[in-house]
């Protein structure tokens, strides 16, 4: 009897210790920064680690926001003022790295990703925290800016200075800064020992690790209806970026004007509803989503190849879904009767 009681006691203790460690859970936090809503999801056992991770993300994103804000007084607006006066501007290493990466991506995109058209974006009214209400700017004003053809090719960059051969260059990293900031935030999270997390800033995200036993599942918004058009399970460390005509826009006289300006025409790019890109680097994915949106159904494959992007989904205005074979191999379409075209594959 005594022996049995002892065994029972031992077994009971064992049983109790086996369940004392709680399972890791997804902790979510939402914050406003970078002019948008940022969701941080962290898989961890305790809330304190998750809170620390959120603070790291907030700090990193806020840093990029103040450094590269395109319309509020910032180091970037100071650089822009001096570039307009054809001055050479002294810059530090972090500024150099940021602009250098953007310039490289612009070159690879045939300047479709063009962070030098800040004046055009401002003319369209998108240099504001609020959505513009129209009317669209005058045709002549748009034409005048397009004719000056500002681009990153006009920029001369050294590790300590920046100058421009074209005074029309006004830098606006709206299609790059968010990706760059997410990359920085993820690197900081990894350094802090966070292995499983998603940083989603205004719909664009980078996910590392997994949700425990299952991968992170990401829904991709339908460009014209409520709900999700497709979903992706992330692998390891990936960024998922979408540029859509529904993100920032205004309607005027029954016509929609969105925020993705084609630098060749000076008008919002037409023909595409959304482009989704998967790539390791959030900064690259950010620039590529914009460039491929502008490239449209005719050019996107070529630009994607140049930018080293394998996984692309482009939805045109007829809701035809174009995909690379690599994207088709892993995406789950979540709607009925989708019109899908798998193209390319000659890479």
């Amino acid at each position, binding site marked *: 009897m005594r022996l049995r009681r002892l065994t029972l006691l031992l077994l009971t203790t064992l049983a109790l210790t086996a369940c004392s460690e709680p399972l890791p859970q997804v902790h979510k936090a939402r914050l406003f920064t970078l002019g948008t809503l940022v*969701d941080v999801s962290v898989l961890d056992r305790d809330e304190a680690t998750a809170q620390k991770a959120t603070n790291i993300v907030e700090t990193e994103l806020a840093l990029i926001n103040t450094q590269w804000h395109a319309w509020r007084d910032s180091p970037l607006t100071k650089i822009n003022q001096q570039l307009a006066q054809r001055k050479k501007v002294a810059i530090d290493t972090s500024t150099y790295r940021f602009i250098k990466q953007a310039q490289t991506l612009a070159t690879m995109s045939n300047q479709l990703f063009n962070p030098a058209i800040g004046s055009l974006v401002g003319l369209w009214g998108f240099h504001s925290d609020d959505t513009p*209400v129209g009317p669209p700017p005058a045709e002549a004003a748009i034409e005048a800016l397009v004719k000056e053809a500002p681009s990153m090719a006009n920029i001369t960059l050294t590790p300590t200075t920046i100058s421009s051969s074209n005074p029309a260059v006004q830098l606006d990293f709206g299609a790059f800064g968010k990706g760059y900031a997410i990359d920085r935030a993820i690197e900081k999270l990894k350094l802090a020992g966070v292995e499983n997390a998603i940083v*989603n800033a205004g719909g664009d995200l980078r996910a590392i690790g997994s949700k425990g036993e299952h991968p992170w599942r990401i829904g*991709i918004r339908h460009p014209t209806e409520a709900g999700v058009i497709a*979903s992706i399970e992330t692998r390891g460390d990936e960024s998922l970026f979408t540029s859509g005509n529904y993100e920032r826009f*205004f309607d005027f006289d029954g016509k929609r004007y969105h925020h993705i300006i084609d630098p060749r025409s000076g008008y919002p790019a037409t023909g595409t509803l959304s482009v989704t890109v998967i790539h390791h680097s959030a900064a690259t994915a950010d620039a590529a989503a914009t460039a491929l949106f502008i490239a449209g159904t005719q050019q996107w494959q070529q630009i994607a190849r140049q930018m080293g992007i394998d996984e692309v989904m482009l939805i045109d205005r007829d809701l035809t879904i174009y995909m690379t074979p690599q994207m088709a191999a892993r995406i789950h379409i979540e709607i009925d009767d989708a019109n899908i075209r798998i193209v390319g594959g000659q890479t």
Partner: protein
Amino acid sequence: MTRADYCVVLFAALLLPYLYITQWTGNESGITASIMSGSSTTQLSLAHDHTVEVAGTLGTSVIKIEGGKIRFVTAPCLGKQCIHSGWLQHAGEFAACLPNRISIAVLGETPRFDSINF
């Protein structure tokens, strides 16, 4: 059966209807919504109809909860995208007024996706 037995049976007889009423009716799915202004978050059940006025950085946004759904009804911003977002009712859906720094989100059930890309 002792008197205590009858008490236990009575207790069980009362407990079951109570459980069915509290867990199954009223709010159809026990869904709650969160309203976030700046960095402060409030959670509200969608079971009861309310009108909530929330102060943001620009002014007051009015949020309406009705029939298990939630939406922005008035906003001090120019674009009114938050109002265009319309009614939200499924877990994971959200709408935001970025200029006024107010967001609403439906919580409560496990969303199908861990994050939404848009």
